[in-house]
């Protein structure tokens, strides 16, 4: 009976711990919980973001989102152009006291690129690695590849010994019928240590006094509390039960701004919200699928009043988007960022030309726990499409329920938000969304489209080391995306964090990731 021993273990820990006495403990009210303590078992930006406080990569983003050394101190590309040599930081230890070595890097890279790993798409170029000595490792790629460092920022490094001891060398496979040890235990090198975790209730992190870096923060720890209801989150913030939320509901910002003890941090997220289409023969209903026709997709775009969505649903806080990547992302260009005029009559005319019948029914798949105000903008768009004589069947449910339908092609039209994380480059959506679905490419190509010309451009860019040339290739590929209406960009979603006056510093990042190792609170510590 495994659970009995676990209960005893928690019991023993509980007697010793008692109520915390630390001063600067930041209560973080998030809109949802992390999926697991294993960053490789859950391919999801938020989970990886939170676990980044515990686990670190070889390199990391600094305050200005530039790449800087982390667990690796330097790197070079060897003469064959496809092998990278990393020199690792000395004197780093994991939370369990084990020293950090090249063996750990190798075990982690193998683990994340294992074929059952949901995160293997995040390290697409990896082929193999070789331990040169304790603090040097060679990583071999499948070709010249410009974006390895970007990828590595979010490939968290595990302790090999710990993985082996606990039988967790492979990513958690729920089908195996055993609990994954790494799912509810964590052992990284990062600034915070996981003290306890109760899924959906709270996860307690304490500061790692042995962290290799000079901390910019003054926290003694933080507690991640998922508070799903936006109203409760606001109430909790106003009453000071939580110190920080990375998801202040857009509709409540005026109220929060008016509160004397709360400060709202606003910006525009890098995440571009898009609508995707099925390219299969038939719709889920079995009817012929009209959306593989470019003009039909164009019609659906014209029928959406982007201005009104921006003004009403997003309360003027979003940035209307014509391009599938945000302006700060390399590869963006202004001439791609044009939006069509709202023209329901023109849209209906296009549908008539394409022979789309009145009252055509199709599923419109949205998430209840996904993008900012997703349920509302989906309803609004469904209503706009109804007005050009279509019958969208809105299907709103949590991510965990919708994702299987989306990946299995078991739905028609769907929403997708893409922030190009962790790469912060337009190569990311081109490879993961717009490229045909083959191997590690097109993992999020849920509609099943294939544009050989686009694929060729993406592949060429993927091996081009010269930045200018590469971005030009990517720009051409994005042009195809735009002209073919492969996906319809709606907006870059607003980003709103809020802190109470107990927090003195909380830098806002355009990738919408809280990095609490930069946060400061006003208690003495």
């Amino acid at each position, binding site marked *: *009976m*495994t*659970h009995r021993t*676990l*209960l*005893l273990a*928690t*019991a023993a*820990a*509980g*007697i010793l*711990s*008692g*109520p*915390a006495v630390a001063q600067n403990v930041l209560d973080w009210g998030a809109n949802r919980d992390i*999926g*697991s303590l294993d960053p490789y*078992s859950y391919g999801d930006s938020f989970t990886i973001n939170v676990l980044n406080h515990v686990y670190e990569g070889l390199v990391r983003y600094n305050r200005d989102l530039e790449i800087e050394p982390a667990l690796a101190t330097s790197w070079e590309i060897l003469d064959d152009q496809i092998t990278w040599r990393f020199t690792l930081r000395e004197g780093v230890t994991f939370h369990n006291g084990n020293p950090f070595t090249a063996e750990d890097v190798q075990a982690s890279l193998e683990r994340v690129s294992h*074929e*059952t790993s*949901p995160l293997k798409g995040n390290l697409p170029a990896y082929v193999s690695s070789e331990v040169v000595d304790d603090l040097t490792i060679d990583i071999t790629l499948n070709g010249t590849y410009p974006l390895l460092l970007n990828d590595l920022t979010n490939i968290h490094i595990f302790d090999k010994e710990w993985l082996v001891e606990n039988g967790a060398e492979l990513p*958690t*496979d*729920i*089908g195996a*019928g*055993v*609990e*994954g040890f790494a*799912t*509810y235990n964590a052992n990284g090198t990062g600034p915070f240590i996981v003290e306890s975790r*109760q*899924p*959906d*209730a*709270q996860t307690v992190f304490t500061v790692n006094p042995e962290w290799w870096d000079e901390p910019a923060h003054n926290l003694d720890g933080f507690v991640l*509390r998922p*508070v*799903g*209801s936006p*109203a*409760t989150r606001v*109430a*909790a913030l*106003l*009453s000071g*039960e939580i110190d920080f939320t990375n998801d202040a509901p857009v509709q409540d910002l005026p109220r929060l701004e008016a509160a004397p003890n709360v400060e709202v941090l606003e910006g525009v997220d890098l995440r571009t919200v898009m609508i995707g289409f099925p390219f299969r023969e038939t719709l889920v209903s079995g009817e012929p699928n009209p959306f593989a026709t470019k003009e039909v997709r164009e019609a659906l775009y014209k029928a959406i009043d982007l201005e009104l969505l921006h003004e009403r649903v997003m309360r003027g806080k979003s940035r209307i988007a014509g391009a599938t990547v945000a302006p700060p992302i390399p590869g963006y260009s202004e001439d791609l960022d044009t939006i069509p005029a709202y023209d329901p009559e023109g849209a209906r005319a296009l549908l008539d030309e394409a022979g789309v019948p009145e009252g055509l029914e199709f599923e419109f798949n949205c998430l*209840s726990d996904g993008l900012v105000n997703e349920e509302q903008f989906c309803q609004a768009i469904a209503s706009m499409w109804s007005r050009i004589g279509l019958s969208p069947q809105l299907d709103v*449910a*949590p991510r*965990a*329920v919708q994702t*299987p339908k989306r*990946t*299995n092609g078991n739905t028609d039209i769907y929403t997708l938000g893409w922030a190009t994380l962790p790469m912060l480059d337009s190569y990311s959506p081109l490879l993961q969304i717009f490229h045909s679905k083959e191997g590690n490419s097109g993992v999020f190509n849920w509609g099943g489209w294939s544009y050989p010309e686009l694929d060729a451009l993406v592949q060429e860019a993927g091996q081009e080391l010269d930045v200018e040339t590469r971005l030009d290739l990517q720009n051409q590929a994005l042009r195809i995306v735009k002209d073919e209406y492969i996906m319809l960009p709606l907006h870059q979603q607003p980003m709103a964090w809020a802190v109470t006056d107990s927090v003195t510093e909380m830098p806002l990042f355009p990738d919408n990731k809280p990095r609490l190792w930069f946060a400061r609170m006003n208690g003495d510590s």
Partner: protein
Amino acid sequence: MLAFLVKRTANAVFVMLAVAFLAFLIFRSFGDPVEMMVNEQATQAERAELRERLGLNDGFLTQYVRFVTNAVQGDFGISYRNQQDVMVLIGERFPATLELVLVATVISLVVGIPLGVITAIHRDSRLAGMLQLGSIVGVSLPSFVVGILLILAFSVTLGWLPAFGRGETVDIGWWSTGLLTPSGRAALVLPAISLATFQITLVMRLVRAEMLETLRTDYVKFARARGVPRGRVHWVHALRNCLMPVITLTGMQIGNLIAFALVTETVFQWPGMGLLFIQAVTFVDIPVMAAYLLLVSFIFVTLNTMVDVTYAWVDPRLRDDTAEVGGTNG
């Protein structure tokens, strides 16, 4: 008496087996567990292999027996969503729910009994009329509306009490309690009141009805005639007579309150079993749903059986009556 005990226990076991059968049906018929467990890249061969390993190719009866055998040992498998042992998940949440339910029960008794007595002894007064009306309003207010109103008033407007969560908890062995810390106690107030609203009116109405009956009995009239003070007759002699049904009701309602707590837990984001269950429902996490169903039914059936047995012990006439005391729906 022994025969009765055996009979009631056998009945309870039968009921639990039937509930287990229902839970098992949910397990079997609701989607394909393999599809929910494997990741998208899994091949057909891997799926078939997993199917075999999970015993999904065995006969229906074999699978049912295995499910019950595992369930009796507290093994419900692994949560699809949290990838953790289901019993550990539920075990962590159980104290939160039970504490909420017990506090709500205490509130319902402390408030409900005096109100019931007052409405009975001042039967025709304006106050009693108001209280009676109030009690109808009490059963008519959906508990989630009560919860929302409480949050609006006491958390948002007045800022007195927390709007969500359990506050700080202390672990005593495997039990985590919020009763020992100020923030834990503060966090308990609003959810407990919101859960107790319905129960208060139930207790109040029962006490009123019982009191009205008792007050008509000769025994009370004699006591009055002998010069026992009115207050003492009402609050001691008469009330004592009403307590048995109240205790019975309270005992049987605990099962219902545990189930109904899931609404309160949703409103207040209270980290109990109910919230776990509701999340399991939205995420189609079958093992958690099945385990919760069995556990709550088990508590329910156990309490009902205990009440029946106690009654039979107190009143031998009931021993050959097969009719049950009947669960109330709430």
